């Protein structure tokens, strides 16, 4: 998310000070101690709805606003990118290296703010402590759980299509050449052992694959060369590529049918949200800072068009607070959201300013 926001802030020529403030605000909110405490608790995988709600909240942790269409696109891009990274991990432990690549870049974004840097380093240490010692089997279970979450998502991303990392059917390319995972051998040799454990015979075989041994292992320390490129910023300054999204791979004739019946939400989902959002300590911006709207598309017209033509099956369901059945729970969530509400900024462009709660209540 931060990579994409960083690129769009530059593409939209948002003044340096403002852009840095947005990035700092979001990062400091994300790495807030209470929030991290909640995330690190052993728990079930979040539902898609709940996760999207949290990201909506995080993206609006500063003076920046996003229309629904832009938020949808942002979320599409970040989930597909993360799916790609998790899928392509050569070995289960590499998901940690991917995470460390993310954190390394985040630290770069906030290198001028020692306080926020500390927050990130704290989380880094917690990650190393919690996950550094897990077995390959446990890490593979984590990876597979994440992959289940992303299953059947095939949104085509133009930067991926251009780099030939994704096919036109939305599936990612799995290379059959290149380095093998750290700690494994290049396939092609069969060794046979007798019942005493002595090697008695060797034969070779060939396949279409063209693999080489990996020269060195990435670092799992606070600082170090991760070696793995997955998780690094593909939108860096030297590659100002358009972040536009190709259409869905399915052409459906369906249209969005507005449902007026509130969906009964699972108790756990609400509890989880209340705890997580409660932990997000969103600062109210100073009076002097005026807000602005970030557009993930090249023009306002494009953004409007995207909003109108988004296929139903890709619509993200954000949690509708009004649909909450239990009055006590509804009041609590409304209170938390109220506390987090930022003063409505004067919009810089002619786009419609979205009320925060309205964003949350979109279904």
């Amino acid at each position, binding site marked *: 998310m931060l990579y994409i926001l960083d690129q769009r802030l530059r593409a939209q020529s948002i003044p340096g000070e403002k852009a840095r403030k947005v990035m700092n605000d979001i990062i400091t909110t994300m790495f807030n101690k209470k929030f991290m405490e909640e995330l690190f608790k052993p728990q079930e995988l979040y539902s898609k709805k709940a996760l999207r709600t949290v990201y909506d909240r995080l993206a609006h942790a500063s003076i920046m606003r996003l229309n629904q269409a832009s938020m949808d696109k942002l979320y599409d891009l970040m989930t597909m990118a993360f799916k790609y990274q998790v899928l392509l991990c050569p070995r289960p432990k590499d998901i940690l290296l991917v995470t460390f690549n993310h954190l390394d870049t985040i630290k770069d974004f906030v290198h001028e703010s020692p306080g926020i840097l500390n927050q990130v380093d704290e989380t880094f240490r917690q990650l190393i402590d919690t996950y550094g010692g897990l077995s390959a089997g446990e890490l593979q279970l984590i990876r597979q759980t994440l992959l289940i979450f992303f299953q059947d998502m095939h949104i085509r991303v133009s930067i991926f299509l251009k780099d030939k990392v994704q096919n036109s059917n939305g599936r990612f390319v*799995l290379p059959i050449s290149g380095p093998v995972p750290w700690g494994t051998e290049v396939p092609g040799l069969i060794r046979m052992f*007798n019942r005493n454990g002595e090697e008695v015979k060797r*034969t070779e075989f060939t396949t279409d694959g063209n693999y080489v041994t990996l020269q060195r292992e990435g670092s799992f320390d606070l600082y170090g060369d991760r070696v793995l490129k997955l998780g690094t910023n593909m939108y860096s300054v030297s590659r100002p590529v358009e972040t536009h999204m190709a259409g869905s791979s399915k052409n459906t004739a369906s249209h969005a049918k507005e449902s007026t019946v509130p969906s009964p939400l699972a108790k756990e989902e609400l509890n989880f949200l209340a705890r997580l959002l409660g932990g997000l300590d969103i600062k109210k911006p100073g009076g002097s800072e005026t807000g602005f709207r970030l557009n993930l598309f090249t023009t306002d017209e494009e953004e409007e068009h995207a909003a109108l033509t988004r296929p139903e099956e890709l619509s993200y369901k954000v949690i509708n607070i009004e649909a909450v059945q239990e009055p006590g729970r509804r009041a609590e969530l409304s209170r938390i959201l109220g506390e987090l509400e930022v003063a409505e900024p004067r919009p810089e462009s002619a786009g419609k300013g979205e009320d925060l709660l309205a964003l949350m209540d979109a279904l």
Partner: protein
Amino acid sequence: MGGSSPAPDYNWAAWCALPARVLLVLTSQRGVQMYEADGSIMVYWHALDVSEHPPAQAVFARGIAAAGGRFICVGTSSGLVLVFDIPPKGTNVTVSQVLEQHRDAITDIAAELGQAPDGAGDLVTADDAGTLCTWSTGEEFTLRSKIPAFGVPPCLLSGAEDSFVHVWQLSTNPDTEDIEIQHCHAECVTDTQVCGACFCDPQGDSFAVTGYDLSEILRYSRV
């Protein structure tokens, strides 16, 4: 032990310790007999159905185990495993289930004492051909896995997340009797992390593949 006919030749005897009681179980060519632990009273008698066996084939019961906290399992020469539901007291023993996975005479049966972990089998049955079956006990016994008989299967299939499925040839070295492996064929399922693969026929002439994010089952055949 009274009775008009001469006592059968018992070939198997076992104490079956269930939570509520201990029974002495004896098997023979005629069937299964269950006694109170001190041998004083016969609780139950089950005659083997000779008609279930092909003619000129030996008939007997073999392999006894207490399982699932309330059952006694007994194997037969026809490959059937009889599951007896044992009441905490008295003689009202019933045959609750007959397990029909084995085609050869049951060699032996063994059961796990106590609770097996979720999904694990707690009963193993073995037959003379070398086939092993594991089961989960309960109201309804369910087959957990079946390991085929002795002898090296001709082909082996492996699939992995690198998108490759490999077919291997297994054989036994006649001189050393060591098992050897040869690579037969590699299939690259483009851009797919293979999650499952299995042969569709016993000769290994075709196999099916499933993968992550794949809504289809792919089938490959030898041409």
